[in-house]
């Protein structure tokens, strides 16, 4: 066991972890941020997606030690300080992009990363390919795609309607 210090949602946390402790375990068990979920054990489902130093990663495939000294943003950290929802969160609700909610935090984190990496624009095809690493069993993805396309507009144009 040794100590790591990871900044999560702008707060630095120091905890003792084993060498094998995963970042997702640090988040869920170590600091009690249970919004990030575990849906598989082969790095396939994406429910554990968070942002590490500005990029989306699967936190089940990052060791806590690898994140030592680095910056993590989780689903709990993307609303604004005064509680306003991120446009992606708003659009997931508006376009029925969730049902049971279990894949949703990871899906939202991946989707934000996708939108941020495509300032030139997005279409349904690029969204579907871009979210290929996040499995949803409930929605059939159609509401999610619509939510992401609407969120792109809100994030770059200020409004989701044309």
């Amino acid at each position, binding site marked *: 066991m040794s100590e790591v210090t990871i900044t999560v949602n702008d707060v630095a946390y120091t905890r003792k972890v*084993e060498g*094998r402790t995963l970042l997702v375990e640090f988040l*869920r068990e170590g600091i*009690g*941020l*249970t*919004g*990030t*979920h*575990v*849906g*598989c*054990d*082969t790095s*396939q*489902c994406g*429910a554990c997606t968070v942002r590490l130093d500005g990029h989306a990663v699967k936190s089940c495939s990052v060791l806590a030690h690898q994140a030592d000294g680095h910056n993590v943003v*989780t*689903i*709990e950290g993307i*609303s604004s300080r005064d509680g306003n*929802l991120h446009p992606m*969160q708003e659009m*997931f*609700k*508006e376009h*029925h992009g*969730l*049902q*049971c*909610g*279990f*894949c*949703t*935090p990871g899906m*939202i984190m991946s989707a934000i990363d996708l939108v941020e990496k495509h300032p030139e624009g997005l279409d*349904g095809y690029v*969204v*579907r*390919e871009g*979210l*290929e690493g*996040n*499995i*949803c*069993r*409930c*929605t*059939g*993805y*159609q*509401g*999610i*795609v619509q939510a992401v396309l609407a969120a792109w507009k809100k994030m770059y144009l200020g409004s989701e309607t044309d």
Partner: protein
Amino acid sequence: MKYSIGQPVRRVEDKRFITGRGKYVDDLRFPGQAYGAVLFSPHAHANILSVDVSAAMASQGVLLVLTGADVVAQNIGGLPPLFMPEDAGGPPGYRTSRPILCSNKVRHVGDRVAFVVADTAAQARDAAELIEVEYETLDAVISVEDAVREGAPNIWPACPDNVSVRLRFGDDIATEAVIAQAPRVVTLRLENNRLSPNPMEPRCAIGIYEPADENYILYTTSQNPHGARHMISQSVLRIPEAKLRAIAPDVGGGFGMKTDPYPEDALVLWAARLCGRPVKYLASRSDSFLGDTHGRDQVVTGELAFDDTGRMLGIRARAIHAVGAYVASAAMAPPNFSLTLIPNVYDVQTVDLTTQVVFTNTAPLGVYRGAGRPEATYLIERLVDKAAAQLGLDPAEFRRRNLIDPSQLPYRTATHYIYDSGRFEELMDDCLARADWAGFAERKIQSSQRGRWRGRAITYYIEQAGIFNDRMELRFDPTGNVTIVAGTHSHGQGHATVFTQLVSEWLGLPFEKVNFLQGDTATVPFGRGTYAARSSMIGGSALRVAAEQVIEKCKPMAAFLLGDEEADISFMEGVFSILGTNRSIGIANVVSAFYAPAGIPDKFGVGLGAVGSWSAQLPNFPNGCHICEIEIDRETAVPTIDRYFVVDDTGRALNPMICEGQILGGLAQGIGQALLENIVYDPDTGQLITGSFTDYCMPRADDLPDFQLSFHDVPSPSNPLGVKGVGESGAIAAPPTIINAILDALREVGVEHIDMPATPARIWAAVQNAQAA
């Protein structure tokens, strides 16, 4: 009105999910919590000769190791099936009791052998690997066809032929006569591939024991916490039901897999009592593939007799349906529905439909979205397309010539259903127009120019929705807020929103004054949970009964408050009025009066609430039409869904956005079955080959197209809301639509049959074989 019934009201439950503040079972932590790990059988069929837990007991952090010997010594019971056909007047069958830990024999890879409890989850898993079990392996039987062969390994000695029960509908003699004399007959042997429901949240259970009162508390990922309380208290722990509280908080999807308890639900409770600490078990995804109830796994040979005009004359089906190593959960439901819905919406009365429900050395099967209705629909729609192709008749036209006409309703099927409502031809025409059925030929040419085969298919489906009865309660507080206390269980279906729309409109209450409570046996007196597309009809109608009772209770109070206890009171949009006058009072004020400490006549009592119930005595029949067009790349054999149109009769869409979400989710699962998903056991050793998402192909966003959905609702007379269920239709109708479209595309190269999943490899092989022939 923005929040009224029929509006696409955005969901009230979303806020916690989109901000990561859902409370799923694994998110909960209790002081002193210990962790459990399960040791699963590595063999499909074996005698347990000895179990040595000494190394595990000595391992770091271990508190307790339980084995089958402990189950026997402490008189812990097993899990029965939820029901057998004989419980509903059907034929007798062999009923199993599933031990929560095996003592002398294991019957499938994944059967539970031991349970380790330790300070951390990792310590528990490490220790489980140190348990030494000596097995004597036995021959295993894996496929349903092998299970009924002469000399097949026997799984339950008291059931020598491995057949738990035989189900039959129809008239074999009459059907044989029709088939023998029919101008035309088509035959098909079809496989309905085994699937794993795989909701994204794996199963999790936390057991807590309070020694002072001998009370147990179970947190469980269940679609039906009251059912879990009943089965575990009565059959496993053998304690009074009132001593067990079961809570299913936020649950991350179920699809039928989470309807009934698992060994782990009982193990955590028992272990908590023995070690004096809360015990949590979280299934890994690998544990889930091994240990969840699976779906489907049926083989059927079907025959459709018809005449030269395309009129269907009779249907015969001989099916074998797996139940797995034990009869678990509602596993007897799919074999039943797999036969009763074969006649579909077609006017055909001569049928002979049988299935043998068999044990195999595989994980127990349960109900998985559709629960037998996909099996039935797949058979009849595949037969219909084969018949249409033989006649050279457009598959839509073939169906048109056989559809039940509205003038024939109510229509009694040969399988004892009474279809109460529907406009099947009108709905089919709606779908044909939307899908531009007539324009296919042109699109086929364009696909060909791009190096692709193109095929299309149409499916009509009907299904029976709603099962059992249920209880819904309305409970007010002194300031006029009402709480819906629901016996149903929402785990993605948006009940908090839809039921609020109903109550808000019926009682004229602002949307924000309606609250929602579910999922805890301590606060919800009774319920049966959610599955089988039951909640809109049964939950909604029970709520309606409760709401009407509220209004009736309020009228005399309104009269009293308006100063005329004899007055006739009417109620509209939240206001009680004396008929023929302008004297009125709002519901909030009437409600408050029930909580006044003095000044109100004693006859009104204290407080206001009502309980309603409803049953599935009259089920409803959702139905609809799917049309799709598929392209297949000539080089790679990869199929791509190019267009997919769906028209559904949901009776009355209470919230069209939520209805569409249900249909879309079902479509994804149905397409997953048709193209991607398959649980595979080694046919000899019974090893699970597809044990993770690496080998079991889940539908992802880029596997699916945009779907075009619309409603063609015909209210159901079976319930006061007019609703028909909506949760299962996508999974029921998509498989034959996809497979028939693929066969339509490949007809020109001579492919006549393909089984699910129609992966690129299978498509490619089918083309090669046809071209070589």
